[in-house]
């Protein structure tokens, strides 16, 4: 791919910036412990935790940087951070 001169880009490019590649620890959600309180969704700095059809929440791993705030804040300790191998 030819690079854009001067790293210039049309709007909306932050979607192309797949920040999931930064992740070292991956949040894994336990549906059994989830009370659907939505705190993780509210606190996620990347805004990448969304509700699924069954009203549970799931992170979008394409953009999740693995910061661990959701795991730290989950009142039911329903989110575990697991080291990933890439």
């Amino acid at each position, binding site marked *: 791919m030819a*690079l854009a*001169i*001067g*790293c*210039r*880009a*049309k*709007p909306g*490019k932050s979607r192309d*910036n797949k920040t999931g*590649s930064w992740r070292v620890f991956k949040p894994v959600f336990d549906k059994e412990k989830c009370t659907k309180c939505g705190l993780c969704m509210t606190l996620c700095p990347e805004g990448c935790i969304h509700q699924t059809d069954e009203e549970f929440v799931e992170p979008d791993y394409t953009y999740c940087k693995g910061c661990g705030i959701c795991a730290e804040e989950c009142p039911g300790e329903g989110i575990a951070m697991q080291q990933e191998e890439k």
Partner: protein
Amino acid sequence: MLEITEGSHAVAEAVRLCRPQVISAYPITPQTHIVEALADMVANCQLDAEYITVENELSALSACVGASAAGSRVYSATTSQGLALMFEVCFNAAGMRLPIVMTIANRALGAPLSIWNDQQDSISLRDSGWLQFYAEDNQEATDLHFIAYKVCEDHSVLLPAMICFDGFILSHVYEPVDMLSQEDVDRYLPAFTPYQRLDAADPISFGMYATPEYYHEFRYEIDNAAKRAKEVIKKAGKEFNTLFGRDYSAMVEGYRLDDAETAIVAMGSICGTIKDAIDEMREEGMKVGLLKIRVFRPFPSEEIAQALSRAKHIAVLDKNISLGAKGALAMEVRDALYGSTIPVKGYVIGLGGRDVRKKDIKEIVSLAQKGANDQFYGLRREVL
């Protein structure tokens, strides 16, 4: 037409002839007379440009970055502490590939405070991606502005440039300068055609974020553009010579170098003194010559290696010092000559406005011939 004029005013006049659309600068000694003259020209309707007054140099170059991205031909000037304050924006201007031209009236950097000349300020930004030209006299300083705009705005280059001329020694000196007419300059330098520009109807961002997967390659591309500039500089210099009879087609220039056993390598106004010293030494039968480096970025390694291949001793003069290492030019000349057996000695001279006289040049030639090691030349006794 030949005019006796102050260096700063000659540069300001050259800039006016280049028809910049936006100028932003902050006055600082010894650059002040340039931007003062340009402000007058704008106020007197002799130059149809937007002159943006700002609170400091960081803002000045930032305004230039915005204006250049919006598609204007842009100019600034600064020196020393002012250039140091622009450090961050310098890297951004090059990375965004904006063809800004900026004059540097070379001055020492503090501390200790000094308003006098050396070349530490621009040399300290040699890694920023800006092309760097060093002028020997005010004629050259003036002409290099026309050439710089032509080179920088070439779509195969798209990089900013610093035209460096020695503060006070050139900026405040009156000497004859052959000034081109507006018709001449218009014939040589076409209107700026931006490669891309900021446009609300078709939005675009400059200098976006690059992840580790791409940053490396962006730096590679800037380096490539700087290297491509070599051919563009030669071509622009040749065309200038065809039209106006002054030859800037070579990035380095030899003076009585062909049969020289001792070659001096230097940049800037000191080359004039060196030429006079060489003439005197030649009269005494000494085979001494000069290699003047006009373009320091991109660095003309091949041309330097070629030009110095017949010398027996090489003395590189640096009006700068990479503290804890050597003078910048000496290190790079040595790199250009890697594998050759010719001894290259580096002498740091004339920092903070210390005069370099013909007798100093002669003394340095004799040091180089004796093989004296790299050193600060002419130190006061109390520090020895």
